[in-house]
C-alpha cells in the first residue's frame, strides 16, 4: 500500500493506486515511491499512531 504523510496538515493518505495531474500513475508498488508516496508492505507506526489519535479525538467529541 502507498502511504503519504502530509505533515503540514496532520494528514495521512493511503491507497493501492494513485493518479497524478501530470498523467503519472503509481500502482501496486511500481514505482516504490513518488512525490512523497511510499509503497510499504506494512503500515508505518507513525500512521498507526495517527489513527489512534484520531479515534481518541473522536471519542472526546462524541
Amino acid at each position, binding site marked *: 500500500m502507498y502511504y*503519504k504523510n*502530509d505533515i503540514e496538515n496532520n494528514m495521512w*493518505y*493511503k*491507497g*493501492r*493506486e*494513485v*493518479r*497524478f*495531474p501530470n*498523467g503519472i500513475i503509481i500502482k501496486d508498488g511500481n514505482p516504490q515511491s513518488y512525490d512523497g508516496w511510499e509503497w510499504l508492505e506494512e503500515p508505518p507506526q507513525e500512521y498507526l499512531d495517527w489513527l489512534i489519535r*484520531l479515534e481518541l479525538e*473522536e471519542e472526546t*467529541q*462524541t
Partner: protein
Amino acid sequence: MSHYYIPIAGTTGWQRPSEWLDLPVNTDENKKVFYGLFLVFEDEFNALRISVRGTPTVDWGDGTSPFTYSAAITKIYDYDSITGAVNQYYDGRNYKQVIVSIDNFNSNGFDIAATDSTNNINTNSSLNFADIYVSYGMMTSNSNFTINNSRTLPYLEIFKFENATRTGALRLNNASILQIVEFNNVDLVRVLNLVNTKINQPFDFPPIAASNNANQNLIIDSIDSYVMPNVEASDGIFRDIKCRKINSFTAGSVGSSFQGRNFVRNAYYLEEIGLIDSPFTSYDNGFNGCSMLRSLEWVDFSMVTNVNNMFSNTGNLRKLITPGCTVGIDISDNSMTADALDAWFTSLGTATGAQIITITDNPGTATCDTTIATGKGYTVVV
C-alpha cells in the same frame, strides 16, 4: 385521548382533543401574552414556578384571583379544589384542566421552568402543559424565553409562537409528544432549542440566528427549510438529529468561527439534504457518522477550505455535487457509481495547490473517469 391516534383516510390526522379547554384567542400582534393549558393530575405533584421580568398579570386559572407579578413564585395546584370536568388521560389517570395566563411580560427574560428547592421542583421535574400559545408582542430580545430548559414536557402537544421581531434563546427541550408546532409572524429566533424533543408533524422553522447543538436528538421526519440569515453560532447545527430529510439549508453572512463544523454529525437516519446554500468555509467532521446519507448538493463550494473528516463513517453516499470545490475530499468507502463520481468530478473547480481526492472502495471507482479530476489538478487515490 390524544397522542396515540390512528390517522384515518380523509381526515387531517391528529386533532386537538375535544375535551381540552380552548385557549383564549389573541388577534393583537402587539400583545405580550402566554397562555398555557395545564393538566392537573389526581396522582401528580402539580407544581409550576414562574420567573419572569416586568410586572405582568398572572392568572393561575384555578379560580384564585389574578395578581400582579413581583417575584419568582411557585404554584402547587390542588386537584380536589379545581372545578370542572374530570378527564382521563390515555393511560387512564384522572386529570382536570386550568389555563395559565401571563399577560404583558417584558423582553428581559421569561422562565416557566425555574427550579424551587423549597418545593422540591428540580431540574428534571415535569411540566404539565399540553397546549401553549405565546404572543411576543413584536418585541426584540436577547434574553431567554424558557419553556422548560432541561425539565420535561411529557404532555405538550401544541406549541404556537407568534409576533416577534427577534427572540432570545427559545428553549423547548424534552417535549416527547409534540404534534403541532407553529411560528407565525416571527422575523428571527436567536436560538431554537429542541434538544431531546420529538415532533410528530413537520413544521416551518422560523429564521434562526444561532444553533450550537440546538437540535441534538430532535426526532422529526423532515425539515422543509432551515434558514439562518446571519449566522451567529453554528457548531453542530443538526448534530445527532433523528431526521430523514432536510429539504434545504440556507445561511447568510457568517459571524461564527465554527461554521459547518459537526454540521449533521452522527445524524444516523438522515438520508438526504436537498440543497445547501451557505458561505461556510469549514465542514470539519460535518457529515461524520451519517451512515444513511445518500445525496448532497451545494449551490457553491468554492469557499470551503476545511473538509477534515467530512465524510468519515458515511458509506451510503450516492450523489455529491460540490461546485467550484478547490480542496481534496476523501469519499472512500461510499456508494458512488462511475456516473456519480464523474458528475462529482465535473462539479469540481480547479485544485488549489496539491490536493488529494480519495475514492477508494466505491462501486464506480474502477470505471469512473478520473482524468476529469486530474485535469483540474487533483491527485486521485483509487
